């Protein structure tokens, strides 16, 4: 009986010891890599933002000048949406929203939508998606030019009822064999434009970093 007890205790100690070693190893790696990882994530977003909003349009730090909308129902989903502001000489020149289209064929499609201060789209990019390779993934810039079709569009170009894919009687192409993916993207871009139109005043009056909130 006593033997069993010591064996049990010893096993417990050994297990505990290895848990500690494991935690130590992971914490050590974490503390070494955490700055680099945060930096990577910043650079990744910044690279995407810069591709949409060229240097000529802004002179602020795009990443630090942002607001997050937690209640993002206006964008048609539950995920919080971050809005980055591009300002030049303290004047708002564009905003970049990061809405998520929740109704892709295979889950969420994360987008970046850049809107000029006058409500015209600079462009749209897909940050991440899980659409079917060869069908729905034509929303990627390295697979097709489809996403560039949003450049220069606005709420009046085309009018709201034509903000659909052609199959639904709208103005935007779908892909052969894949309607759901472009439908989700078009819908989310439209909602983002509508959100900006309705809340424009918020951004224009709070264009300087010191003012907002």
């Amino acid at each position: 009986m006593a033997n069993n007890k010591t064996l049990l205790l010893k096993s417990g100690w050994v297990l505990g010891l290895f848990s500690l070693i494991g935690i130590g190893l992971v914490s050590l790696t974490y503390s070494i890599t955490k700055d680099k990882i945060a930096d990577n994530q910043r650079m990744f977003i910044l690279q995407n933002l810069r591709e949409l909003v060229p240097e000529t349009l802004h002179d602020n730090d795009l990443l630090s000048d942002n607001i997050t909308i937690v209640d993002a129902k206006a964008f048609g989903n539950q995920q919080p949406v971050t809005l980055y502001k591009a300002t030049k000489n303290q004047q708002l020149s564009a905003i970049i929203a990061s809405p998520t289209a929740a109704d892709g064929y295979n889950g969420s499609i994360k987008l970046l939508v850049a809107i000029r201060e006058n409500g015209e789209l600079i462009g749209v990019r897909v940050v991440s998606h899980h659409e079917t390779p060869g069908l729905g993934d034509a929303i990627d810039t390295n697979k097709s030019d489809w996403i560039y079709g949003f450049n220069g569009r606005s709420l009046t170009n085309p009018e709201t009822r034509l903000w659909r894919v052609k199959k639904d009687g709208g103005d935007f192409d779908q892909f052969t064999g894949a309607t759901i993916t472009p439908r989700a993207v078009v819908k989310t871009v439209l909602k983002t434009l509508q959100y900006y139109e309705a809340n424009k005043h918020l951004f224009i009056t709070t264009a300087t970093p010191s003012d907002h909130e």
Partner: protein
Amino acid sequence: MNSYKHILKNGLWDNNQAFVALLGLCPLLAVSNTVINGLGLGLATTLTLILSNSIVSIIRHQVGTEIRLPVFVLIIASIVTAIELAMNAFFYELYLILGIFIPLIVTNCSIIGRAEAFASKNPFTASFVDGLAMGLGFTAALVTLGAVREVLGSGTLLANAHLMFGDSAKDMVIYVMRDYEGFLLAILPPGAFIGLGLLIALKNIIDKRLAKPKTQTVNFSIDPEKA
């Protein structure tokens, strides 16, 4: 020396974890759509195997048989988490592509399999070599399947090489077929199953051919593989 050679051959060919033991099929099938994806996951798995085999071998006398498995799982999970963090830090874009399959290395049966079947019974150097050989065998399988699927599916080889080797590797991509429309089936999951099946069949044919000279029986009957 001979035994190391044996261990190497075992890992790379005779007991290849992917083609013979058929372990780790989930990452093998999911991530083998391009050479670079396969190589990335293969090397991460190799590193895990080497580290877990080495550590298990070092502690094999200290840990009693009753708690052997939980301790192995703890070790493997810690190693994989550390590797995941490191990849996140140093190969960020590749990390984004491989996504969930890096943490899922923990569940690759071949890792705990080697710890249990080999490292817990063998000295350090042999266990290290075994981890290396098994890992490289698995990597070779991933890369081969990745190459087949990438050529058939998109007509390229080594696309996205810069994700692993830095910007200077951007020109490494080989366009096997110009203006290729792409064969969708090869990229989709069924293509992975079919490709793996064909590669296993190929390996079996090679093994059969190699085995023939040893057996003295001269057999001129029609071999189905030759037809």
